[in-house]
C-alpha cells in the first residue's frame, strides 16, 4: 500500500482508538482517506483535518495530522480560515449531513461560492447520529425518527443540487464501503483547486441502517448506480448494457442493443463543462427512475479565493508606497509639534 515518497497509509493513523460503532460506514471512509493521503505523498504535517460535531466529525482524532474538532456546523468557516491564512496546507473538512446542511448550511454555501480550496467530505447518513437518531435535512420525506414519529413533512436537500446552486465547481459522490471508488474520487477532489464537495453515502447501523441499501446493496449496485468518469460513456448495469441518453432536455435510461440503440448513442460524460444543466440532472438522478450517479459529476476550474487573496495582496504590495507600519502612520495628514 505504499504510495509516492514511500508513504504508507498507516502513517496517517493516530494513536487514538476509533470510537465509531462496529459496522458504521465511517470506518471505511477513514481507511480511504488515509490511503489517498499516502498515495498522494502527503506529509503528515502539511495536512489539517477540520471537522464540526457529529459522529463523523470525530474523524480528525484518528488522523495523524494536524486536526481540529470544532463546533457544530462551523467546520467550513474554520477550514476557510485555516486555508486562507496558510494556503500551503492541505485542508480537508469532515462533516455530516446535520453538521454541513442543518446548522452549517450557510457556511457550506458561502464556502462553495467563494471557492476556497478545501476538500469537503460530507458523510450523508440521512440522520443525526451523535444525538441518537433525529431526522436530518437529507432524510427522505416521510422518514420516521425520534423527532418525526409520524413521518417528516419536509423535502430533503439534495446535496449536489444545493452545491451547484451555490455555484459549486466540484461535486462527486461515492459509497462508504466502495473503497476503490472512494479513493479515486477523493484523489480527484484533492487535486481539484477550489472547494470540492464529495458526498459519501454512509450507513449508520444504529439509527438509520440500510437507508442507502436500495442502491448500495451488492446485489443491485451495478444496476442501480452509475459511475461517471470524464470522457467515458455513461454506461452501467451488471451487463454494461444500460446507458443514458438525452431526449430534448430529458435524461433517459436505455438498453444498448434495444430499439436500435448502440454504444455511440450513449452520452459521454463531460465533468469539465461549465454549463450546469446536465451536471444537475446527473446529480439529481434517483432510484428507481434512474441509476444514482457516483464518481466525479462536476469538476470545473474557477478562480480560487485563497489564491486570489494572495494575488491581490502581492499586487497591492507591489504598487503601494506603504511598506511598513511606519510608512502608514506617516502618510496623510501629519503635523509636527516642536
Amino acid at each position, binding site marked *: 500500500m505504499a504510495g509516492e515518497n514511500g508513504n504508507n497509509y498507516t502513517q496517517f493513523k493516530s494513536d487514538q482508538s476509533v470510537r465509531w460503532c462496529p459496522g458504521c460506514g465511517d470506518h471505511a471512509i477513514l481507511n480511504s482517506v488515509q490511503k489517498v493521503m499516502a498515495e498522494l505523498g502527503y506529509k503528515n504535517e*502539511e495536512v489539517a483535518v477540520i471537522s464540526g460535531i457529529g459522529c463523523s466529525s470525530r474523524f*480528525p*482524532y484518528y488522523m495523524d495530522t494536524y486536526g481540529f474538532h470544532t463546533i457544530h456546523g462551523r467546520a467550513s468557516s*474554520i*477550514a476557510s480560515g485555516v486555508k486562507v491564512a496558510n494556503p500551503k496546507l492541505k485542508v480537508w473538512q469532515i462533516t455530516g449531513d446535520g453538521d454541513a446542511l442543518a446548522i452549517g448550511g450557510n457556511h457550506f454555501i458561502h464556502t462553495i461560492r467563494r471557492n476556497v480550496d478545501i476538500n469537503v467530505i460530507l458523510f450523508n447518513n440521512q440522520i443525526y447520529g451523535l444525538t441518537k437518531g433525529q431526522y436530518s435535512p437529507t432524510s427522505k420525506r416521510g422518514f420516521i425518527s425520534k423527532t418525526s414519529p409520524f413521518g417528516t413533512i419536509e423535502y430533503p436537500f439534495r446535496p449536489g443540487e444545493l452545491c451547484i446552486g451555490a455555484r459549486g465547481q466540484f461535486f462527486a459522490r461515492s459509497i462508504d464501503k466502495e473503497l476503490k471508488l472512494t479513493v479515486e474520487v477523493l484523489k480527484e477532489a484533492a487535486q481539484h483547486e477550489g472547494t470540492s464537495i464529495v458526498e459519501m453515502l454512509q450507513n449508520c447501523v444504529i439509527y438509520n441502517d440500510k437507508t442507502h441499501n436500495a442502491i448500495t446493496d451488492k446485489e443491485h449496485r451495478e444496476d442501480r448506480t452509475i459511475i461517471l468518469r470524464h470522457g467515458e460513456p455513461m454506461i452501467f448495469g451488471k451487463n454494461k448494457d444500460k446507458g443514458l441518453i438525452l431526449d430534448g432536455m430529458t435524461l433517459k435510461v436505455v438498453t444498448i442493443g434495444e430499439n436500435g440503440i448502440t454504444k455511440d448513442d450513449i452520452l459521454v460524460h463531460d465533468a469539465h463543462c461549465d454549463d450546469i444543466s446536465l451536471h444537475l440532472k446527473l446529480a439529481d438522478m434517483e432510484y428507481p427512475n434512474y441509476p444514482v450517479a457516483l464518481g466525479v459529476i462536476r469538476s470545473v476550474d474557477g478562480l480560487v479565493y485563497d489564491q486570489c487573496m494572495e494575488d491581490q495582496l502581492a499586487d497591492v504590495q507591489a504598487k503601494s508606497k506603504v511598506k511598513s507600519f511606519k510608512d502608514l502612520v506617516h502618510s496623510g495628514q501629519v503635523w509636527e509639534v516642536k
Partner: protein
Amino acid sequence: MGKRSKVIEREEVVVRFSGDSGDGMQLTGTLFSYTSAIFGNDISTFPDFPAEIRAPQGTVGGVSGFQVHFGHSEVYTPGDYADVLVAMNPAALKANAKWMKPGGTIIMDVDSFDEKHLKKAGYKTNDPLMEDKLGDYHIVKAPLTTLTKESLKDMGLDNKSILRSKNMFALGLVYWVFDRPLDHTEEFIRKKFAKKPAVVKANLKVLEDGYNYGNNIQATTPSYHINPAEIKKGSYRNLNGNIATAWGFLAASEKSGLPLFLGSYPITPATEILQELSARKDLGVKVFQAEDEIAGICTSIGASFTGSLAITSTSGPGLALKGEAIGLAVIAELPLVVVDVQRGGPSTGLPTKTEQSDLMQALYGRNGESPLVVVASSSPTNCFDYAYYAAKIAVEHMTPVILLSDGFLANGTQPWRIPELSEFPDIVPPVVDKNDKDWAPYKRDEERLNRYWACPGTEGFEHRIGGLEKDYVTGDVSHDSLNHERMTDIREKKVQKVADYIPELEVLGDEDAEVLMVGWGGTYGHLYTALEELLAEGHKVALAHFNYIKPLPKNSYDVLKKFKKRVVCELNLGQFASYLRMNFPDLEYSQFNKVQGLPFTVVELKEHIKSLLEEC
C-alpha cells in the same frame, strides 16, 4: 488683521458645526480641527450623524453635526456644551439649542430661516430664538447663502456648486472668530480639487470672503482667543477610535512577526475597523468579510490555529452571536482578539449611539465556565494601545481577549502623537520549541500557564484539538471527572495570571480624597475632566479608571479600599459595580448610571460627585 473688539480669552472652547446631511458639516469640522491642532491646541472631536442614511432634508432627524473641543491645555472630551454653534438651518438650531453654553455665540444662516424651514424643523413661531429661549446669546445672523452667491457670482458656476460652497464661507467666518490661519485649509482645497481649478478658485475665494466678512462685521461678532497648548514634541495626526484600534493590531502584527488576519461582518459602529484593515492589503493584512459574525470569528479561529494574529470585530448583537465560538477558543486555548464596539440598547437597540452595556456579556456570555481576558480602551487614541496590548496578551498567554470599545470612542478623534514601534514592548509568541522532547499539546509554560503554539506545517508536532474537554497534558478527549475540574481551574488561573503582566491601577487626583470616582473604558475623558475641575474647585476627589477588567489589576482592592466612599460611574445599569461587588464584596459602592445612548456630561458628573461630597 485689524484690532478686534470683544475678544473673549478662553482656556478652551467648544465649537459645533451643524447643518443638513448635505451641508458638508463633517468636512468643515474636520478642517477646523486640523487647523486648531496644527496651531498647537489640544483637540478632541466628535461627529454626530443622523440615524437614517438620508433623513428628510430640513428636519431635526436629518441634522449632521461635528463638534470640536480645543484648548490651551489638554482636553479629554469633545465637550458637553458648545461655546459657538454654526447653524446652517433651523433644524440645526433646534437640535442643538439645549446643548449650548449660556452666553455662547450662535452663527446662523438667516437665509434658511424662512417659514417653510422653520416649520420643518418643528418651530411653531417665526422666532426660533425666542422659542428656544436663546435671548442671552451672541447671535450672528449671517446671510450665508446670499453672501456665498454674491462671492461667486462671476465664477460661472452652476447654482448647486455655489450652494455647496456655503460651508467654506461659514468656515472662513469661524476662522476669523478664532483668529486662525487659512493656510492648512487652502492647501487641502488645492490638493483635493487639483483636477478642477475652477472649483479650487471658487472655494478659496469663498473661504477668504467668509474670513473677511468676520473682519467687517466685527463690531457685532465676539472673537475668542485660545493660546496653543503645551504638547509633547513629535509628529501628530488625528485618529478616531476605530482607526486607532485597527492600527494597534497592525503594530502588534509587525512587532510580533505574526501575519494579521481579520474575519468580520459589518455592523455599526464597528464596521470601520473592517474597512480600514480591508484597505491595508499594502501591509499584507488578510481580511475575510464573512457571511455573518459566526463565520467571522470562526475563520479567525482557523487562522489562529495556523499561527496568525487573529482578530474579529463586531458590536453587541454580533458579540452575542459569537459566544459559542468564543467558548471554542477558550477550550482550545488559542489566541484571538474579539473587538466589541459597544452600542446602545438591547437587541438592535440604538445602533448609532454609545453605551457600556456589554460588559457582563463580555465576561459571561458563553456556556460553561469559560474565562477569558477583558480589556477596555478609554480614549479614541488609546484604542491603539489597548489593541496592541490585547493582541500581546492573547498571543503570549494563548487566550481569547475581548477588547471593549464603544460608539463614542469609535467615532471621536484626538491628535495622536505618532509613536515609534520601539516604544512598545516586544510580543513573543509562545511558538513550540522544536527541540522540546517533552512537548505535549496541553503542556504549559510554568509561569504564564499558557500552552504552546504548534502550528500546522511544523513537522513532528501533529496533534488534534477540539471543543470536548481535554486531558490536562495530552489534550486528548477526556471524560474524567477530576481532570475536568483540574482543567476548569487551570483555565481560570491562566487568565488570572495575566494580572502579573499588566500595569497596576493608578489613582488620579487627591490621594486623601473623600470620594473616589471609579470608571472603566470610554468614560475616561469625562470622568477625568470632572476630576480636574473638581480638584480645581478645591474638592477632595480622586479617580480610579480601569482598562483591565478581567483580570483586574493586582492592586485594585488596595486602591479601592483606601477611600471612604466610592462611586462607580458607568453608561449602563451598574454592571461594573456588580462586578466589583463580586470581586471585592466587603467594600461598599455607590453607583452613578446613565443609559441614554449618550456620554456623561462633565456637568452632571460634577453635580453628582458634589452631592456625594456634601453627604460626607
